[in-house]
Structures are given as C-alpha cells and as structure tokens.
C-alpha cells in the first residue's frame, strides 16, 4: 500500500542523534523532512530510560563531549533545553587503596599528580599542551567532509588543495605528534611524558574505549586522540553530563528538529529503500507502507546502509567488499545500577567530591592490557576495565532523593564468545564487573537495588549497531577520514542517486558528535541546488 496522502522532500532512516541532527538541518533549510525510527523512542544509542520508577538509566551512551559546538547554535538547541552539566572531577583508584583525584583547579591537580610523582607534575602540563596543539591541527578536518583524494573533478582537487594547504601550516613537531598518535600505542605515547603507573593508567583509559585494542596496541593512540577532540565549554577533552542523560540530549534534538518542521515517527521500521532507475524514490516499512521522497538518508551503520536497506547487487563490487570487511567487533558492555546510597571508598569516607565525574577503574596500563588479553581469545575480562559515573550526583533528577544511578561502561566483552553466548554469560559477566567494584568500594553489593546488563549483543539487538560496535565501525586508521565508511564513499553520498548516509559510521563519527548528520545535510542541500 502506498501512503499517498503525504510526500516528503527527505526521509531520514533512523532516529539516532545523527539522524535527528540531519533532519534538523534539512528541515531548517525548508525541506519537508520525515524521520523514521524503529524503536518507540528516538535517540538510537543515546537514550535515557526509567527502568525502575524514579531511576533514570543511560542504557548505552552516557556522557557528552564530542558534540561539535556549532550544532548547538545552528539548531538553536539551547532554546529547546540543551543543558550540559559540569562533571567537576575525575577519580582514579590506584588499586592499592590509594587514588588520583583531579578537578577543576589546575594548581591542585598539579599537586595531586606530584603526590604520586614529582617527575610527572610538569609533564602533566606539557602532555596536555602537546595534545591541545594536535587537536588544533586536526580540528578543521573534523569540521569538513573528507576530500575525495581519488576524485579528478575540479571540486575534488580544490578540496585536496585545501587539505594540503592546511597541513602545510602545521608545525613539524605537531605533525610528528599527529602521526605518532594515529599509528602508535597510547602506552608508548604516555611513556614519553609520565613515569608513574597510576598517572599513565589514568590517561590511558580513553585510548581503548569502544575499541578492540589494549593500551599497548598500535592504534590505541588514535582512540585516545579521538576522545581528546571533544570539548565542554571550550575545554578540550573535557566531558559533560547532559541534563537527563544523553537521552535528555536526543530529546532536545527531537524538539529542535520538530520545531523546524521535521516529522518524527517512532515504531516505524524501514525494510528497504525504494529505487527506480538507479535513483532513490522512498522507503518501504516492515508493515508494507511505502513512503515517497526524492532524498533518502540512512543514519544506520554502513553494513545496514549498503547491505540491508538496498540490494547490494545494485552497488559497485569494491564498495560491497569494503563494507563487508569493515571491522565492527564490539567489545563494550554496560552494567548500570540503581543504588540505595553512595558507595564508600575507604580512603575518602566522608566526602562526595570524588563522585562528581568519571570513576576510572583501570589502575594501570598493565591492568587494562591484561583485561584486553581475554578478548583476543573470545572471552570477557576476568577483571574488567570500568568507566563509571554516578550521574545522580551531577543531576539529582536522575534518581529519587538520597538514591543514585550509576552507569558502568565495561570492557572487554567481545561480541562473539568462544564456546558460549551472551544470553548464557550475561549475569556471570556482570558479576565480574560487580566484583571489581566491590574490591574498590567494599559493601557495594549491599547498595544495589537494580542491575541492568547490556551486552554487545543487546546493543546490536536494540540499536541496530552491527556487532554492538558503539562507533558504528571501529576506530582503525584504515577506517577513518577518507576511508570512512569506505574508500571513495566518504562524502555522504552513495552510488544510488538521492540515497545518502549520515550515521556515526561516516566521518567524523562515532561518539555523540552530530557532525556526520550536519555534514551530510550540507552535501544533500548542495546537491539539491545543482
């Protein structure tokens, strides 16, 4: 059946944050835009759910940093409730009962580092300055579509000239640091600055998030750099907690897109993109409904965009091959808790200051590397790395008065288990994570009112992210920039006219960044003007 009552200028498949950003820009430009979301709630992997009355869980994505600031203004998000709350501290137990606690006062942070290592006190400044310089050099690449270096037409050549000109202006040292980060390991990079194991361990944690690498693996430097590219109120590498969690943020996006006139339908699973004579003409839903639009944008990952929604036989063979060999290999899980009260860290019994931000449970590089080892052989970590946050400390509306919610991002949990499966292992795995928490916060288990376990398989089932990879494609050098999601197709178009891609699997996704949605909208609007 054809829903002939309405036709649209553009249909966005997938109401994750990039789909909503894309729809917001398209609607703002005057396009009659429809967003189709398969679940009953928009947000994709950035949702907040009240699983227990009064307790709001950030089921998947749990904090905000990479979001490009211009999107906040261009989509007028403040007007629709955008409110990133400061996470005032970072807490890193050192595994021996001690801790490293960093906050918002630079001088105090230097003394805190110095308490562990006098050597590392000035390295701390040098480290962040060098990384800031790298971010400064890379930022223009983040804010523009990757040039098509394989293209021959004048527009492509102008893009390449722009890139070369930009890189030409980058200092030699900074360029060398860029390459060291993009190709090397976080452990090697950190060794050049720090000597203390806990200080290194603290800084290494962002080098493995969402990726099947250990901090000693080449490639972990790239993951570290990517996370440093984020910012909160101008502070590079700094994270915020959005009011109501990342689901609160995607609700803001949905309101903004709606205010520009976009229509959002939930519970609407798209089964295929309709084409006619090599052009996209609309979509078909699972229930048989057909909706028409000359522009269809997939906010899904590359595998679903190219192999599920369209017939891969319509596509060039090399693209299909590249999409098929793209690495996903999710290794991340969530174990989220509703707590009856705040956990107690024995060395800091009478304060809550250490719960203002991330609790980084991965004392040393070696600890995290050993946690990684298991995943290479198809099993989860005996003692996993945990990036935790007691979000109700920052936003009291997340839990009833005096109670708390705690988000725990747990690694490593490989998508494919050898000799078992996730439905069997779910609780045993969560027990391992909880045992690690218990070892740092004695009595933790007594506080647990509810536990939610989200395995890579659950991530895939609920959000559609292939193999539960939270970035919609691993952060590996051959899968970044002009190779993201596939060589020759990094500019948000597809081989099918009128069919576009805007998901986290395109540059500069993943993370909650918004840029793929924005940059894709620029491509679409430019094409429509031709």
């Amino acid at each position: 059946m054809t829903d002939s009552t309405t036709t649209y200028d553009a249909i966005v498949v997938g109401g994750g944050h990039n789909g909503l950003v894309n729809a917001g820009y398209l609607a703002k430009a005057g396009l009659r835009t429809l967003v189709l979301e398969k679940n009953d709630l928009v947000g994709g992997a950035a949702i907040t759910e009240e699983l227990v009355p009064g307790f709001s869980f950030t089921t998947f994505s749990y904090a905000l940093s990479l979001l490009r600031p211009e999107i906040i203004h261009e989509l007028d998000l403040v007007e629709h409730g955008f409110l990133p709350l400061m996470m005032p501290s970072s807490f890193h137990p050192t595994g021996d009962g001690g801790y490293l606690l960093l906050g918002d006062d630079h001088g105090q942070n230097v003394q805190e580092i110095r308490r562990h290592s006098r050597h590392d006190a000035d390295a701390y400044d040098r480290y962040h300055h060098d990384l800031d310089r790298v971010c400064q050099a890379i930022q223009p690449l983040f804010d523009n579509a990757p040039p098509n270096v394989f293209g021959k037409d004048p527009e492509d050549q102008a893009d390449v000239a722009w890139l070369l000109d930009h890189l030409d202006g980058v200092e030699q040292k900074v360029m060398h640091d860029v390459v060291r980060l993009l190709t090397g390991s976080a452990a090697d990079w950190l060794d050049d600055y720090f000597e203390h194991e806990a200080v290194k361990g603290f800084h290494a944690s962002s080098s493995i998030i969402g990726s099947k690498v250990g901090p000693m693996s080449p490639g972990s430097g790239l993951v570290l750099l990517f996370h440093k590219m984020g910012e909160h109120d101008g502070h590079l590498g700094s994270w915020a907690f959005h009011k109501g969690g990342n689901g609160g943020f995607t609700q803001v996006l949905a309101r903004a897109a709606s205010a520009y006139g976009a229509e959002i339908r939930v519970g609407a699973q798209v089964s295929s993109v309709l084409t006619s004579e090599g052009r996209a003409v609309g979509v078909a839903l699972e229930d048989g409904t057909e909706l028409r639009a000359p522009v269809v944008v997939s906010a899904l990952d590359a595998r679903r965009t190219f192999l599920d929604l369209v017939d891969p036989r319509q596509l060039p063979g090399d693209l299909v091959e590249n999409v098929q060999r793209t690495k996903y290999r999710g290794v991340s899980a969530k174990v989220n808790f509703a707590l009856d009260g705040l956990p107690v860290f024995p060395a800091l019994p009478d304060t809550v200051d250490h719960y203002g931000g991330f609790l980084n449970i991965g004392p040393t590089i070696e600890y995290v590397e050993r946690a990684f080892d298991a995943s290479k052989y198809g099993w989860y970590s005996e003692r996993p790395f945990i990036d935790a946050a007691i979000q109700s400390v920052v936003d009291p509306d997340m839990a009833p008065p005096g109670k708390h919610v705690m988000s725990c991002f747990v690694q490593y949990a490989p998508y494919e288990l050898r000799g078992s499966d996730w439905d069997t292992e779910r609780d045993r795995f969560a027990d391992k994570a909880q045992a690690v928490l218990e070892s740092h916060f004695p009595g933790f288990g007594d506080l647990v009112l509810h536990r939610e376990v989200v395995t890579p398989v659950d991530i895939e089932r609920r959000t559609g992210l292939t193999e539960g990879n939270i970035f919609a494609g691993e952060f590996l050098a051959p899968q970044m920039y002009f190779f993201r999601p596939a060589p020759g197709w990094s500019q948000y178009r597809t081989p099918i006219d009128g069919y576009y891609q805007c998901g986290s699997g395109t540059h500069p996704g993943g993370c909650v960044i918004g840029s793929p949605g924005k940059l894709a909208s620029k491509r679409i609007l430019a094409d429509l003007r031709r």
Partner: protein
Amino acid sequence: MIRTTPFHERLSALNTEGLYTHWQGHLSALRYTHAPKHEYFAVRNGVGVFDTSPLFKYRIHGPDAERFLAGVLTRDVRRCRPGQAQYTLWCDDRGFVMEDGVVFRHSQNDFLLTAARPNLGWFADLVGRLRVAVEDVSDDYGILAVQGPRSRMVLSGLATEADTLPFFGQTQTKIGSAPVTLSRTGYTGDLGFEVTVERDHALDVLDAILEAGRPHSIRPFGEDALMMLRIEAGLPLVDVEWTNSRLAFTDHDRVTPSELGMGWMLRGLAEDDRAFVGGAAIRRELAERSSRWAAVGVLVDWEHWDALHREAGLLPSKDEHPLGYESVLHDRATTEGGAQVGYVTSFFYSPVLQRHVGLARVRPEHAAPGTEVHLEIALNHANTTVRARTARTPLFNPARKTAKP
C-alpha cells in the same frame, strides 16, 4: 579585624579552598570547592545555599514608616503590602542612583530594608519630623539564600509556607524552634528563597536546611558562582554596573534608574504625585526622554568569536569567570571606522546559554533587541572587535523563577 557571619562556623568547615574575599568587612567565600561552575549548577539544576549575611539591614518602623519610605525610595513602597517584599532603589536629588536593596514589609508600620553598603546616616537625616525610627540591625541577623529548582522541595519540609509563597512574597514562620522570615527572593534569577534569622539561631537553621537538603545534594556556593548567576539574571551590582552617585567623581560614573534598566520601577510615575528624593529629576528625564543610556544585555556572535581566536592561533576561550574590567562597544568594527556606542560592565561565558554574554549600556538608539554592536577584546595583545547583538535582560529567565506554586 575582619568579621565573620553567623553561619561562618559551619560553612567554613565545608570550604575546602580557604578562598575568601572581604565583603563589607566580613569573610565571604569565593568558592567552597575547586569548581565554582559546579556550585553554579547547584543553583541552575539542584539547590545551593549562599551566605548573604554581610548585607546591611535597617529596620524602619513607626506610624509614618510608609510615608517615610515612600519619600526616600524610588519605587512606590505603598504598593508593597504586608507579606510582600520589593526590590527597590534610592536616588540622590538629581535622580542618580545611590544604591539598591530589598524592602520587606512585615506589617503596616514595620519594614526591613537591605543594602549592600552602609546607608543609615542618609536615611536618618531624611526622617525630619516624621514619627519613624530607622535602626541598624545589621549584626542581629544572618540571611541564608536557598536557591535553585529544588529549593522549595528542601524548605517545604521545614516550613510549609514555602509551598505557597509567591514570587517576592515573605512570611514570618519557624524553622525548628527558630523564628525566621522566609521570603521568595534572591540574587540568582532562579527559583529561590531567603531565610532571615536571628544571629543566635543561625547555626540551628543552617543545620536544619543542610540536613533537609542532603538527599538533594545541596551545596554551598560562593561569590564566583553568584557572579555568574546574577549576570545571566540581568541583576546589576553596585560598584560594577554603577557607582553610588554620592561617591562618584563624574556624571559618567552616575546612572539614573532608567539608565540602569530599572525603568519598569517607574511605571505610573508620571501620573501620580508622590514626592520622593530625586522624583522631580526622574519625572523630567522621563518627560524629556533625556536618558543618556539604555541598559541591555549583549550576546556575542559565537561563530565570530571562535573564528577570531582560531585565526589568531588560539583555542577559543570559554571562561565562566567574569572579566574584571569594562569593554567598549562600537557600532561597527574598529577596523571599519566604528565609533563607541556603549560599554560592557559585566562579561563572561554563560554555561546555560552556551555563549559569551554581558550586561551593557548603549546609547538609546542602539538599544533595540538584536542591534549589531562590536565588542572590543584583546587577542595576542592587540585590540580587535567581535560581533555581538543587544538583547533583553534577563538573559536567562526560567519560568520557575516567578511561577505560582
């Protein structure tokens, strides 16, 4: 010798920084933790307490109290009924603002007026033959501001009146066994209350509020956070936005109520015949439209701000700490021959508005909201201008601030 407030003993124990400023001879915390922005968010998204005790407090009572205040305060105090409070100004005889404060009307003939600076002599000299006493009771009371979206939740468990108090309402009640004045007032532009309590009961009341607030993550906030809050709220501060007219050297440093953005206080003034200090000059200014300045907010063009910094090889700074100095506003970029049209008195990066904002005065013809202005900033030690637009104040104005309970 520096003095301490009635809440100091307890609040100083919560202060991990040891950072204080001196506020009218009292220790006043700049911040309680390493992160003043976190304290700021207590007020914008939870609940925080601020010790505002160093304010001067004057009790004005007697059969002619209303008549007296109607003759010295700029805003018509006769419209403030018992059980209400009123934000007000007082001016010199040329219609220039001296100071501001809040007047609490406890009964027909009994008022309490707060002031940031000592003013007893000035008020007392104006009493003449009226049957009114003006008493300095500054040291007798502590005032604790309880501010933020959860402030009502915290206080209503201690005094049920919090549930029904309207914006700028006030009432006599008890917290524990201590008599207090509970008012829906504050200096943050958010939902909030102030508790005025006799010195001897101050710690008991503070303890009760902190205890009730604990499940709501109540936090004390210091002056750093207060400055951020009050700029967003469009609330001017003496010695920052203006100088007491009697202490200014030139008229450049003096402002009239209209020039301070308080024209709304003067509504109906032309039609009534209330005689008050400065009244004739103010009526003349209104009639002749002779105000030199209009008070506006300023919103900086984020894109231009970022671009200027990037071109200069700098990371765009987004600093929530207000600038300690004034900046000049031009009608066009200085590189394009811009001429001065105003000046910014307070300026910072607002976390809730996600942009640089300021409080400013501009020539009246540039005051319409959205007028383009160019703000002088120094980058790499050279002055340049960044594009901005004028805006109405308050810059941040949540519905909960004035909402009926």
